[in-house]
Structure formats: C-alpha cells, structure tokens
C-alpha cells in the first residue's frame, strides 16, 4: 500500500510539469486555432536560457526562472509573427495544414539550432534543486520534485487569475469564443494573439526549467520528448480545456509512475499511447469541457 501511495505521489509531482507544457498547447489551440508544434522547443530553449543566465551571470534560481520566462515568451512572439500569422486565418476553423507545417518547420529549425549551439549529449544543469526530502511515514518525497510541484501550482494559479479575474483575461476568453465578435467589441485580437503566444511559450519554458532542475541535466532533445507528452495531455484533457490539461497532466504522471512501479519502465510509452488511442475512440471530446 505504501508503495502504491508513493507511486501516486511521484505521479502527481511528475504530472504537474506535463500540465504546464500542455496548457501552452491548449491556449494556442483554443485562441489562435493552431496546433503549435514549436511549443516543444520552448521547453528546450527556456531551460538553456536559465542555464546560461546562471552560468555566465550568476543568476539565482528565481532570477533565472524569470529570465527563462521572458526569453521563451519573446521567442514565442517571434514564432507567432514570423511563422504563424502569415499563414493562418484565425477567423476560420483550423482546416488548413499550413500553420501546422509552419510550426513544424520552426520546431525543426530551433531544435537543430540547439543541437548546433549546445552540447548534443547534454550538460549538467547548475540550478538543480537540492531541497531536503520530505518524509511522511514511509512516503518519501524528493525535495526537488516538491519544489517543482509548488512552482507549477503557483504558475497555474497565476494563469487562472489572469484568465478569469482580469480584463485581459476577459479579452482572451472573448477572442477564444469568437474572434470576429471580439473585434466588434473593440478587442485588438492580434495583440491578444501576441500575448497568448508569450504566455504559452513561457509556460513551456517554465516546464523546461523545472524538468531540468529535477533531473539536473539538460539536452537539445529534452523538448521533443516533453513536447510529445504535453500534446498527449492536451488531447486527454480535451483540446481546449484548461482544467482538462491540468487533470490530464496529473493523470499521465500517475499512469507513468504506476507502470514504472508495477510493470516496467520499458512499457511506459506503449501503455500510455495505447490508452490514449483507446480514449480517443471512446471519448474523443476529451475528459473535460472546453473553456470557450
């Protein structure tokens, strides 16, 4: 029983980072009507931004995290301006492939740029968490995972406050509902797209920094695998459901932890993707309703 609870706890802690990355996918999909595959690279670049800020400028963890947020966010704005806006029509349901392919192109370019500029084999991450572990009876929680979980929760809380308690959030939700109507109501939807890309990419960047801090290593390929998980989570939750992305992330984390604990780590992907296929067939609208 202790082992079971231990695995659930590990899963919840792991899942919170997946949820952050998935929220980035969900926001862009819900508001810009684009499946932004470049999101995966925001994870990598966010982590490297924190790495360089710490290594060369001696930034502490909080300062490096803020730096990574700004860097990934601005990179996201560039992606929106240069690759998404010229090819997409946010006033129609996403039917064309061109915005998707354009973000794939950006992803390929950014990943290879990372491979070229950084050490492809990976580098130790200087800001790895070293908090004291928490022991609750026989349940053991590593300090790093707990800190990452706390930061994820704070970030998600801030996101909810922005979306549901501010006038900016109201404009974002109006744009998600109907961009044409939002324009008539005086919302500058293009500046909303810019802001949403900033927020989404920043979420990816935070996910990258937190993952790097937990495992103590970064590589140019980290985004590709975490991005794929974020995408899976977004689908599990229902493509445009924020709470779905959070619940989906936690569920994926728990599923992975249980499979690793009881079956074998080799079967994680087979089970996760098998369950995802079945879920799509049984409940294609996702677990929770859309935020629109």
């Amino acid at each position: 029983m202790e082992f079971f609870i231990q695995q659930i706890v590990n899963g919840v802690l792991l899942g919170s980072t997946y949820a952050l990355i998935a929220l980035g996918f969900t926001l862009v999909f819900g508001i810009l009507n684009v499946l932004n595959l470049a999101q995966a690279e925001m994870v990598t670049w966010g982590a490297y931004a924190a790495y360089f800020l710490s290594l060369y400028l001696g930034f502490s963890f909080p300062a490096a995290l803020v730096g990574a947020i700004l860097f990934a966010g601005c990179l996201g704005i560039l992606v929106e301006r240069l690759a998404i806006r010229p090819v997409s029509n946010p006033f129609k349901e996403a039917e064309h492939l061109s915005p998707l392919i354009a973000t794939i192109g950006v992803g390929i370019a950014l990943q290879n740029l990372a491979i070229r500029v950084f050490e492809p084999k990976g580098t130790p991450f200087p800001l790895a968490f070293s908090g004291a572990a928490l022991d609750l009876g026989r349940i053991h929680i590593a300090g790093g995972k707990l800190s990452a979980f706390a930061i994820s929760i704070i970030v998600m809380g801030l996101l909810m406050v922005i979306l549901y308690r501010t006038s900016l959030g109201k404009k974002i939700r109006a744009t998600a509902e109907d961009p044409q109507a939002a324009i008539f109501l005086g919302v500058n939807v293009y500046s909303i797209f810019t802001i949403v890309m900033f927020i989404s990419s920043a979420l990816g960047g935070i996910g990258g920094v937190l993952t790097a801090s937990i495992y103590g290593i970064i590589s140019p390929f980290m985004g590709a695998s975490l991005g794929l998980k974020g995408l899976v989570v977004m689908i599990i939750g229902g493509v445009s459901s924020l709470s779905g992305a959070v619940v989906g992330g936690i569920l994926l984390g728990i599923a992975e932890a249980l499979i690793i604990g009881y079956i074998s780590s080799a079967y994680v992907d087979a089970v996760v993707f098998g369950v995802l296929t079945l879920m799509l067939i049984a409940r294609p609208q996702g677990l929770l309703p859309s935020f629109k």
Partner: protein
Amino acid sequence: MISGYWIELLSGATISAMASLGLYVQMSTGQMNVAQAAFLGMGGYAAAILTLKLGLPFPVALVAGAALAAVVGLLFATVVLRLSHWWYAIASLAFGEAMVSIASNLDYTGGILGLMGIPSHTTFALLLSVLILLLLFFVGLERSRFTLGMKAIRADETASMASGVNARAIRVAAFGLGAFIAGLAGGLHVHLLTVITPTDLGFHISLNYFVNVAVGGTRHFWGTLVASYALFILPELLRFSATDRFILFGILLVLIMIFLPQGLTSRRLAFRHRPG
C-alpha cells in the same frame, strides 16, 4: 555516370517518395496519418524477420511485410473511422508511438537495438522499377471510380454520401492501400540499409512524409512526388553540417507555407492574406 553518393541519396529519396505517395492516398480522403513511419516499420520488420531469421525469398518477404502493414492499416482505419482531422492525427500519433514501444520490447524484433545484418537485396534499379509501377498504378487509379469517390469525399463528405458514395468504405480502403505501399517501401528500405531500429518508426520520421504531402498538396500526386524528392535532396545540396542543413530546411518549410499554403499543386502562388 552517377556516383555511389548520388545512388545512395536517390535511393533514400525514392523510398521517401513511395511512403509519401501512400500517405497521399490516405490524406486525399482527409485521414491525417502521422504514423506512416510505423507502417513502414511494420513492413520492414516483418520482411527482415522473414529473410533474416526464416530464410524466405526476398520477394515473398516484401509482399508479406506489405500485406501485414495493409491488414493493420485496415483495422486501424476501421477503428478510428469516426474521428476527424485533429483527433485522427493524434490517434495515429499515439498508435505510431505505441508501435515504437512495442518494437523496443519484443524479443524477435531485437529490442532497442533492432535488427542488424539483414541481407542487402534492394538495388537502385529495383527501387526505380517499383516506383514506376507505383506511378503507373496511380495514373490508372486517377481515372477510376475510386478516385472520383475520393475527390467527392474531399470536396464535401456529407454531400458525397448523399449522392451514394460509400465514404466509409472508400476511406478505409484508401488507408489500407496507403499502408500497403508504406509496408512495401519499408521492406525495400530495410533490405537497402540492412538495419532497422525502433526509432525508425517514430513520430519524427513520420513527420517527414507528412510534410512531403502537405508541401506537395493533396490536389494531385505529382506534387507529393516532386516534394518528396526535393525535400530529401535539398538538405543534402545545402552543403553545410547536418544541423545547419536542418536549420535552413525548417526555415524553408515556413517560407513554402507562407507562399504556397495549399502546397505545390495549388492553382496559384498565394500572397499573404491578412483577414479582418
């Protein structure tokens, strides 16, 4: 004379073209398959096991591999039939990644290391002959009722069904055909490279074929053919280091989408459309 380097390059491009043509048939009926590499891999693994471990003749192994991919393809398409675009893409993504994981865990696929020392049977001449046969088949197919049905589905699925087109059967058959072609290409590929590993089945490989069809456009298969060769050879022609090539390739992909959003076979060059 063509040098060995070019033969190698063109062989790779020809296999990419076959896989993409198979995907073209599927995407023509609105089935966004992002797991084409998994179907290549199924054909490849099956054919390799048959020649390497059971010593069966190469042509038999090729056909058996393609048939396996086709059967799995038909089953997959039947199961995910009612999903539409995004969902379809994600279901196929999940399916493809599950295949990678299965191939990494089975004993007779060689686990994570995959299979090595597969007999080298595939020649460039064989690849070209298969491609030409495939293209002849596609030209013939263009005039068939099957293609007419596919075009009707693409134009308007509901209207086509109201006019008596059996959209479901056509979609499933199109998927099976595409998977068969992929399985064949996979069988040829492993007997060219003599190795196969589970990562060859992954999403990132499938994306290449997906991009070929998207860049070529689903209006006509010639677009896919040209895009497959161009996008395979182009990164090689941009003679920088491997990573530099892919950086430029990514940027080029964005530019192609900006100026040719419907792909190479679009009717006219599009200019930036900014609505509102």
